[in-house]
């Protein structure tokens, strides 16, 4: 159990059966008045935010969250299937739950899946960098003087990003999964 005085940015708690993360927090106490804990929280499943002021005798349950290493197997329609690498248990997350992460998911990739209540997968955290193969790219014309520093290419997941002009189809490139930006060309 947490009490209101434990509240701080980043704390994960459970309210009415749902996991929440504290996104903003402010302690206030008017003169001769009681301690107030003004808190903004985000529902970790729906993404809904709300603001609430708590008093020091308010109590909160710890959110039951657990991360497991899982391997991406395949996608079917909007469901993305993963397998636990130790128990071989299979689960799926929806396209909506994965958000931009689908741009970087390839078969057999290992990711961390966040479970709520032991059984409900609610989020994935990707490796910081992924290496993906370029599938479509305009050829590099040496001596190109058009002045453009970058060009768009498509990678094996269908994701389109800006890269330097020397990157060609068949190359592997490293991408930062947080920003979605090109990092470097990878030699294999």
């Amino acid at each position, binding site marked *: 159990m947490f009490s209101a*005085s434990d509240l701080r940015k980043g704390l994960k708690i459970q309210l009415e059966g749902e996991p929440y993360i504290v996104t903003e927090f*402010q*302690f*206030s*106490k*008017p*003169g*001769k*008045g*009681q*301690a*107030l804990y*003004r808190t903004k929280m985000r529902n970790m499943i729906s993404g809904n935010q709300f603001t609430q*002021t708590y008093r*020091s*005798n308010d109590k909160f349950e710890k959110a039951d969250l657990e991360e497991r290493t899982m391997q991406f197997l395949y996608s079917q329609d909007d469901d993305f299937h993963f397998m636990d690498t130790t128990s071989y248990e299979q689960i799926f997350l929806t396209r909506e739950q994965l958000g931009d992460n689908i741009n970087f998911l390839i078969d057999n990739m290992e990711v961390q899946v966040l479970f709520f209540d032991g059984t409900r997968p609610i989020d994935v955290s990707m490796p910081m960098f992924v290496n993906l193969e370029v599938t479509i790219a305009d050829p590099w014309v040496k001596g190109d003087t058009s002045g453009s520093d970058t060009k768009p290419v498509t990678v094996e997941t269908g994701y389109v990003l800006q890269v330097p002009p020397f990157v060609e189809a068949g190359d592997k490139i490293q991408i930062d999964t947080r920003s979605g930006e090109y990092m470097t060309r990878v030699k294999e």
Partner: protein
Amino acid sequence: MLLQALRSFFYTRQYLEVDTPLRLPVIIPESHIQPFVSEECFLQTSPELCMKLLLAEGNSKIFQICHCFRKEEHGGLHQGEFTMLEWYQAGWNYYDLMGECEELLCELVQLFQNWSGVSTATNILRQGKTISLKPPWQKMTVTEAFQQFGGVSAFQAMEEDCFDEILVEKIEPNLGWDCPLFLYDYPAQLASLARKKTDNPTLAERFELYIAGIELANGFSELIDAEEQADRFAEEISMIKKANGYKVSMPDVLLRSLGKMTETAGIALGVDRLLMLLSGRASIEEVVSFTADDFNVERSLQ
């Protein structure tokens, strides 16, 4: 520099500087202030008790700059240990103190006009807004403030147990942006050490000074009727018992002395908050010399 200027202000006005113990075997019971326990004593949450004992002994103008300790208070405007400036003057009421607050702040701003929180000899600068210190400053009763900003009357807020929430969320952020503002005449339950108003005993002669939404000082016409004070301490003690489950003892030593006090007004001002305002800093953590984190070697190496 600020400490020097504060002392000089009070010395010039013939106040006596006093120095009272930080560790005391007895404290004033206040339901929302939690003291740190130090062996068989408490660390003071304010110097009020000892200073009133000195007033009862015949001192009429005293001030003190000291450290106070309050448990479980930590935020941009709160630290478990902080510096308080507290002063009393016999023969005065709370209006007289409001006037002296104006004089004190005007003198400080004049002195420190090159500091980042000050824009000219008469203005404070906060979040891009200019706050003029030219007296007289604005005065607003708690009743008016709830009407104007609270969306509910102060009386109703007390009844519905949401007074503090409305004050903090809806009212305080609006106070003291054109010029400093005195919020005054609080419900008597929220001022157990202040004299009740003779024409309306549901209110007490207490005020808070606000600058840029920040509560800077709390003053009142002191309650000197020992019998009434005992009743009101008893209410606080029972509220503490109800909320925290332990019994606090009645500060008999203070009650015995109150009878010897004459009409007096007293005020406490947060020195860290004042320094934060004048130096244009965002939180008091940035103006105190050390915080607990400064002693955490592992953390400071990171």
